[in-house]
């Protein structure tokens, strides 16, 4: 094990495998330079440990010092006492360990099951250490940012990321959207999955805007061949000069009673009203929605309601809700073009689809459309996957569905009924996973939350949100203190399936000309060279 370029911090003085280890800082290391979330390595006797600083505290050897503090205006006094009579301690949570022998070196880092011996040296992790844990940028991994206060590139395995559902959480304005764009670009570039993005704020397709009001390029501008922009609101797209590939229209007959169940809260429907929907569906078949809307306040209607055992006020409640849906301009009685077919067609070709909502930013439209399309796409995927399993044919390319305001789809009340709840729970069986973006993770069903493999969280300050994001994670209290100390912008904690250990990082820059250039490697040049040399 080489010791090059490492900065020694101190030695291990106590610890336990459940609570992490205490490190006494050397006098040469200033306690003020230590920040929660930084990476350290511990050189044990037989193995090496990787851990994260989760707490920084102060200690004194003699309590008299705290009662009669020395005159620290005297620099000599201050210098002598620093690190000796007064010292800093770090709390480090070890996450991974790597053995010293050749076999374990080949095996790579393993989860930690013990603690380093007394007085093991603790160093700041070097760039090589980070690389040995997270790997470097290559065919499978893409660069997402830099670990806190480090220059090293932190890379994420695209395949692992899409293998399970992932979540991006954080208060509004912390950088979720900017970072999600990078994640999408990463999976897109590595070609491990196709994305379907329900883009409520029209931020991902053509261009988005930064907090300062500057415009930033989004997926389609960077990768015109591999991204298709679908829109619900052609007019808005045209005004924004977005070249769209398809205008989505939803037919009345495509709306199912399950969609209404999901919209119960948004449309302010009562429980019996939702029940009534199912009865209407049974009564009128596929065209239940226009048929229900068309029912006038007549004796015949009353008779029908009586027969169906629906109370009149319930019916009125339902009709009001359905009228809201009926007023959505993209809903039409008959739609000839099959939106789902088009989306699947693009996805099959490896083209990522961004569905812009344009002006329809209310949740009714978003929830309705997202749920409706996803349900049918998922059904198709399941069919194909089952065929693939039965006939040993090629499996469909993994699909990642990105939804914003995820708690609207996945709250405990509806998670069991919506397709998103199903996808989150059944996970990767059918090669479809979710990428949920939310600012109120506490609103998401616990069961769904526990199935989210990789979580990336920006600053959260609500206790319940923090608890729900960290639920079920080992070393929760340590991570909690890290999470609470994140900067309000451009700092995030990533943990879970796609990373070997939690890490606080600064997402890579996005929005400048240079950043775009970094995202688009000179593929043409490489191609040219390949062609030239055959």
């Amino acid at each position, binding site marked *: 094990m080489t010791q090059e370029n490492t900065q020694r911090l101190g030695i291990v003085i106590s610890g336990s495998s459940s609570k992490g280890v205490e490190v006494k800082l050397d*006098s040469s290391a200033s306690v003020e330079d230590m920040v929660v979330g930084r990476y350290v390595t511990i050189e044990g006797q037989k193995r090496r440990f990787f851990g994260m600083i989760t707490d920084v505290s102060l200690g004194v*050897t*003699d309590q*008299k*010092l705290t009662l*009669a503090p*020395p005159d620290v205006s*005297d620099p*000599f*006094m201050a*210098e*002598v*006492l620093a*690190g*000796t*009579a007064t010292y800093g301690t770090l709390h480090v949570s070890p996450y991974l360990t790597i053995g010293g022998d050749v076999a374990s070196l080949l095996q790579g880092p393993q989860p930690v099951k013990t603690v380093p011996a007394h007085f093991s040296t603790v160093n700041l992790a070097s760039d090589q250490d980070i690389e040995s844990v997270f790997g470097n940028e290559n065919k499978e991994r893409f660069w997402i940012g830099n670990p806190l206060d480090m220059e090293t590139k932190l890379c994420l395995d695209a395949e692992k990321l899409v293998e399970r559902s992932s979540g991006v959480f954080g208060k509004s304005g912390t950088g979720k959207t900017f970072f999600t764009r990078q994640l999408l670009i990463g999976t897109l570039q590595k070609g491990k999955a196709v994305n379907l993005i329900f883009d409520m704020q029209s931020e991902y397709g053509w261009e988005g805007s930064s907090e300062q009001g500057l415009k930033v390029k989004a997926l389609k501008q960077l990768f015109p061949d591999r991204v298709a922009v679908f829109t619900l609101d052609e007019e808005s797209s045209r005004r924004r000069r977005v070249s769209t590939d398809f205008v989505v229209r939803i037919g009345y007959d495509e709306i199912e009673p399950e969609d209404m169940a999901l919209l119960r809260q948004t449309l302010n429907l009562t429980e019996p009203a939702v029940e009534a929907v199912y009865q209407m569906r049974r009564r009128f078949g596929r065209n239940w929605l226009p048929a229900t809307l068309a029912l006038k306040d007549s004796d015949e209607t009353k008779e029908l309601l009586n027969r169906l055992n629906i109370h009149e006020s319930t019916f009125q409640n339902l009709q009001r809700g359905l009228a809201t849906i009926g007023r959505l301009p993209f809903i039409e009685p008959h739609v000839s073009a099959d939106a789902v077919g088009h989306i699947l067609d693009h996805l099959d070709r490896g083209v990522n689809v961004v569905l812009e909502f344009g002006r329809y930013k209310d949740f009714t439209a978003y929830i309705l459309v997202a749920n409706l399309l996803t349900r049918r796409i998922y059904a198709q995927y399941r069919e194909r996957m089952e065929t693939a399993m039965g006939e040993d044919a090629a499996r469909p390319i993994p699909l990642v569905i990105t939804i914003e305001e995820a708690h609207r789809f996945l709250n405990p009340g509806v998670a069991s009924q919506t397709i998103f709840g199903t996808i989150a729970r059944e996970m990767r069986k059918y090669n479809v996973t979710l990428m949920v973006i939310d600012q109120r993770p506490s609103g998401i069903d616990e069961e769904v939350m526990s199935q989210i493999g990789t979580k990336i969280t920006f600053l959260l300050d609500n206790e319940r949100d923090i608890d729900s994001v960290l639920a079920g994670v080992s070393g929760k209290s340590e991570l909690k203190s890290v999470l609470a100390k994140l900067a309000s912008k451009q700092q995030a904690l990533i943990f879970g399936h796609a990373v070997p250990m939690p890490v606080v990082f600064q997402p890579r820059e996005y929005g400048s000309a240079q950043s775009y250039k970094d995202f688009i490697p000179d593929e043409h040049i490489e191609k040219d060279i390949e062609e030239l040399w055959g």
Partner: protein
Amino acid sequence: MQRVGEVIEASTTDFVAQCYELYQSPPLGSLVKTRDLPLELYAIVYNATTTSLEPGRRPIARGKDEAGEEEIYRSSPQLLKLLKSEFNALVVGHRQNEKLYHYLPPNPARIHSFVYLCSPDEVKEFSQSFDFLNILINTNLPVSAEELISACLRQMSQVYEDRHAFLVAAGKELAILLSGQFNQLKAILGRIRE
């Protein structure tokens, strides 16, 4: 090498040396050594006395009719031969077979061994390790440990170009040794700061 005296009384932990000239004892806290080859003893001066040659005969005041103090010695030159200067030194280490040890030697110094003041190079070499501080702290002496340690460190620091760095390093070592006795530490640090 500057010869400063001759051992006249010795024990395992310290020795008494008599100076050849009156009042010529090395300063408090300075590092001295004896050479009983192959063993060299290093010691730190912790006390100096000047007394009458004969224990029963005390000096008397003589300056009543003299203009200055120096005149007393000039008019009674025999005084220089009737008084003696001695110093006590605490053994803090030894050198055997070219190797330096910061702990007590196997044998005490021999009577009539010559005592030398250590050269700056030797002081530097000896003070590479602060292990001797522990001996100074833990010995019961007529001089308080704080006074002796600070005097010793002040003396040693003079041979260093970067006195400050040396004193800080020594201070840190003391802070560890005196971790439970902050008041003592504070007293020493107050005496060695520049």
